[in-house]
């Protein structure tokens, strides 16, 4: 089957430098949970993949990182784009190093690899499309005191943090922006003002 031309486009024209800038934003995001990062160098993948999520895939995924596509993201155009640009195998949630989809579609977090006691780094990173939700307060490494954010729910992230040092790490993407929530972040519902 011939790939649509859409699958072949949307990469970087100067991959080494553009990847470096995009990664630096992803690094700052993971180091400062809840802090919004604006990406300047963007990849473009077929809908419904956001530019920020496409950029994360391009910068972090390759044949060594199985990727799971959830819900609407699991479509031929997206699969072809990932195959062409990243060469990452497409897998179910249990084997995924990275998973991409809306919060709803990503589903039960228990389906993803949490790492092991000896290798907690062998855990999945979830790239969540979309931002917003209920106001929460974040505390933990990377946050001076506390930081305000919005999450689609609270309990799932509290359960995840309770697994530390095991657990999942998250990026939330919208347009050209992203922020991160590692397993170390403690989430509480923001007090009503």
């Amino acid at each position: 089957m011939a790939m649509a031309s859409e699958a072949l486009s949307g990469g970087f024209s100067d991959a080494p430098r553009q990847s470096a800038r995009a990664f630096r934003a992803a690094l700052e995001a993971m180091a400062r949970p809840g802090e919004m990062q604006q990406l300047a160098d963007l990849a473009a993948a077929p809908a419904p993949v956001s530019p920020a999520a496409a950029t994360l895939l391009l910068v972090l995924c390759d044949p060594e990182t199985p990727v799971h596509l959830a819900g609407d993201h699991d479509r031929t155009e997206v699969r072809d784009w990932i195959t062409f640009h990243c060469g990452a195998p497409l897998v179910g949630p249990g084997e995924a190093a990275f998973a991409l989809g809306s919060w709803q579609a990503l589903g039960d977090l228990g389906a993803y690899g949490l790492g092991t006691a000896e290798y907690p780094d062998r855990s999945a990173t979830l790239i969540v499309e979309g931002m917003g939700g209920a106001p929460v307060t974040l505390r933990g490494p990377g946050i001076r005191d506390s930081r305000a954010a919005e999450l689609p729910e609270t309990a799932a992230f509290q359960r995840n943090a309770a697994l530390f040092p095991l657990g999942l790490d998250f990026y939330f993407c919208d347009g050209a922006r992203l922020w991160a929530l590692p397993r170390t972040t403690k989430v509480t519902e923001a007090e009503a003002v």
Partner: protein
Amino acid sequence: MNAEQISGEYNFAYLDEQTKRMIRRALLKGLAIPGYQVPFASREMPMPYGWGTGGVQISAAILVPEDRFKVIDQGADDTTNAVSIRRFFEKVAQVETTEKTAEATVIQTRHRIPERDLHEGQVLVYQVPIPEPLRFLEPSEVETRKMHALEEYGLMHVKLYEDIARHGEIATSYAYPVKVEGRYVMDPSPIPKFDNPKLEMAGIQLFGAGREQRIYAIPPHTQVVSLDFEDYPFQRMKAPKCCDLCGAGESYLDEVITDDAGGRMYVCSDTDFCRERREAGHVGALGVAEDAA
């Protein structure tokens, strides 16, 4: 290593993109699990292992063309090692370099934390010879990994307590072990324990051990506690002297032999800190005022 000898085709920041991706993924997991040693497949660099290839690989994976890069070796910008690494990245990543801590965006270091507090947006990359704090107590990697998994750090406390029994104090003065965010015991690399309190900072700290193939990290504002005992609390310790050049009383000092007759002086190990103070008009006991000429 001689930067001039590197020629021919090479990628931005020297490493190929696949290697950088692998290191970048390890860095992100390192930040998500502060103090935990993430294994990575270290690559050959055009310099020997003792030259900080772990730090160099991290710098290669994080540098962007817009960075201003500083390299220090025991606090100094002008040692052969520091100059070589600086020239290497000037050549392969075309980054600007600087000796000024305040102006650097990425600082690669061997054995010191700059005196000046780092701020948001700055990254400190450590060259690490032996990443495993339990290595001297337990030679087996399988065993130390198990000990970290089970949070079994009793042996480390026994070692520190033996120090106290033998010397009346904890004699470890470099690579003094810390506990990060109440979970992982971590080797801060051979920095003097004087620097340990500065491990809690606003900048991002990344640690790379090339030969041992480990990466670990401390995010900003992360709790880092030097191991100690209630009756023998951690003490920062420093020579009760001031810098002979700039008069600083709060900086980490190196003892320098000045002549064959055994003359000696104490100077800031952080050369940029010392320069900045002298330029601001501070003069030590053996210093010459900057504007005296």
